[in-house]
């Protein structure tokens, strides 16, 4: 696969019925591979923000951006891959644990700065927020415990602003 990697696209889209169908239809039709897609309200009423993790080569993803931008309801598209940006995903993981196993799982969760959000007699629910790689690593570490259910939001991303030079003077 010539340089296939996961790219993070952030699109601002009009909050119309069917816009998700249009985006999904475009990806399917052109054969672009969606790793994850997260949608929610943006700062502007009437517009949503979509974060789409798409797998492909740089050229394929460039074509994907152009095709996305052709959708009338898509106002902007940014590829945040490699750009200064904060990306996060939320995962909830239900793990089958006996009472004896609880402290062990709690300890690992703590190391990963996750949270235990529910405990039952036979299971615990761990909430983990962070970069996708961190969640993947956490899942790798807890393979000794039987996982009952995983629910992940898919990644969301936001670009960082330029902080400017150290002397605090704005650049022209």
């Amino acid at each position, binding site marked *: 696969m010539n340089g296939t990697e996961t790219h993070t696209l952030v699109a601002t*889209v*009009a909050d119309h*019925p069917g816009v998700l*169908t249009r985006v999904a239809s475009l990806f399917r*039709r052109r054969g672009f591979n969606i790793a994850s897609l997260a949608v929610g309200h943006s700062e502007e009423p009437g517009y949503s923000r979509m974060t789409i993790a798409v797998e492909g080569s740089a050229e394929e993803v460039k*074509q994907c951006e*152009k095709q996305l*931008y052709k959708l*009338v309801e898509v106002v902007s598209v940014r590829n945040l891959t490699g750009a200064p940006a904060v990306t996060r995903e939320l995962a909830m993981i239900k793990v089958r644990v006996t009472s004896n196993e609880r402290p062990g799982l709690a300890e690992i969760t703590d190391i990963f700065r996750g949270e235990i959000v529910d405990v039952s007699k036979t299971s615990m629910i761990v909430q983990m927020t962070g970069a996708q790689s961190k969640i993947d690593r956490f899942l790798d570490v807890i393979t000794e415990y039987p996982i009952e259910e995983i629910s992940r939001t898919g990644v969301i991303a936001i670009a960082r602003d330029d902080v400017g030079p150290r002397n605090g003077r704005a650049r022209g």
Partner: protein
Amino acid sequence: MSAINGQSTNGSTAAPGTPRTGGEVVCDAMLAAGVDVIFGMPGGASLPFYDSLYHYQDRIRHVLIRHEQAAGFAANGYARATGKVGVATSTSGPGATNMVTCMANDIMDSVGVVYITGQVARPAIGSDAFQEADVTGISIPITKHSYLVMDVDDLPRVMSEAFHLASTGRPGPVHVDIPKDVFLETTTETAPDQVNLRGYRPSKVGNARMVRKAAEVINAAERPIIMAGHGIDISGAADELMQLATRGSIPVVSTLHGVGTFPETHPLSFGMLGMHGLAYANFSMRQTDCIIGLGTRFDDRAVGKEDEFGPGAKVVHIDIDPAEIGKVLETDVPIVGDLKLTLQKLLPLIESRDRTPWLDQMNGWRRDHPSLKIPDSPDSVLPQEVVRAIYDISGGEARVIADVGQNQMWASQHFWYERPRMFFSAGGLGPMGYALPAAMGVKLADEKQDVWCVTGDGGLLINIQEFNTLAAEGINVKVAVLNNAHLGMIRQWQEFFYEGRYMGAFLDNPDFAKVAQAFGLHGVGTSSRDEMHEAIAMAHEYDGPVVLDLHVDRVENVYPMIVPGTGVNSVIEDPR
């Protein structure tokens, strides 16, 4: 508000505040867009719209077609011949799904058509009501944009957006699905003075730095070629194309849709390239050092194998759709912009250059590989002769609408088109059955122009019910059926690539002249050369629609041909 969206699109002819029904809003929007002919068939969900059309009969001609697919193709022909937006309309469910092929055809060929479909009334949507189908769901991937209008107050804005989207930037089909009760409700809303779509800002003039770079690359080229596409026609840039070619002594080849954008009898014209393009046009593409792609998407039927297409050549690509640039060919100078405006910036930078050695080389190929020589055929009329006869009798002034398949290639090859909008064919999607309904649209776009529908027997049968429309509406189209009793291109491919295992290629045809007569048309059938010439002369003079069932050689092949999967290095020429 940017200047790009600055065109006034207020669709209302009524005073502001006057209540209008949804149906009237649609009619007013059509008038505002300059549409004077629409094509359609009514049904339950669109009856209220037809009640509005009843009151607009003096200003909008409704042509009742006999299958909704014909409405879409006729609207396509009307749009391409006028440069305006075409309108096709149907009812919900089956009426709308019958136009799906047309939408797919329009988006492939960048043709602006607005589709008005009725939908079941709002309370019934989602209930699997009679004649309900999720047609906006179906049309999403094959339209430029689509709307399901759930509030009549939105309709004036939606209609003006629909016409704006269909006609600007890279034109394309826009689908407006309107529930029956929305047609009936009234609104006092009017369309905004200007369309304002934040996510839609088509480019105008190409980037100045890139235009300068394009000029440098073109001026430095020894063996440049202009590849003229449909964009020249859409943008109205034929004059600029002529100036570019003549100033730089740059030869021009065209795509199928570019045919006629540069006069085909001009010494710098080297005809159409591609799978059935002229041998010398294709030979030129392997030797060129600079491809100037103007309003073309470098379609696979034009390009063939990419690595044999201008190997090592610099590529300058101007197109209004950024997604087409770099999609097929690696591009050295990408320019996104309207062709006419961008070429106007480029032209002053183009040096007048002598390119005699290159032109001599190309003319040498033209001499040695004539491609358009019609072989002797004592026992049968060849289909190419028919096209040539139409060319001769019309003095090259007829508008020709070809169907899909062998007839399409012969019609593009054996007629010399001198202007844009003289040759029409469905190049991208390739839907058989296009020519007859499209020819109706082309004829009604300008009734002073002679219009010839050149179709195969297979394609004719797909929309032959439109003989009824021709007769009922008196649409003066001349239909030349190149009747070889086969799906000819299928037969040719089975001969070439399946060792003559003919499967599903033979057509047991009716007598098309008699069929035409039964529909009330003037129909003539013949297999003789003399009678063919007489019949074409008669049709040319005859005041009314004519169908000529011309029995041509059954096994004639289209040459030249580039075998699919190969490139311009492997052109098969006529062995005779």
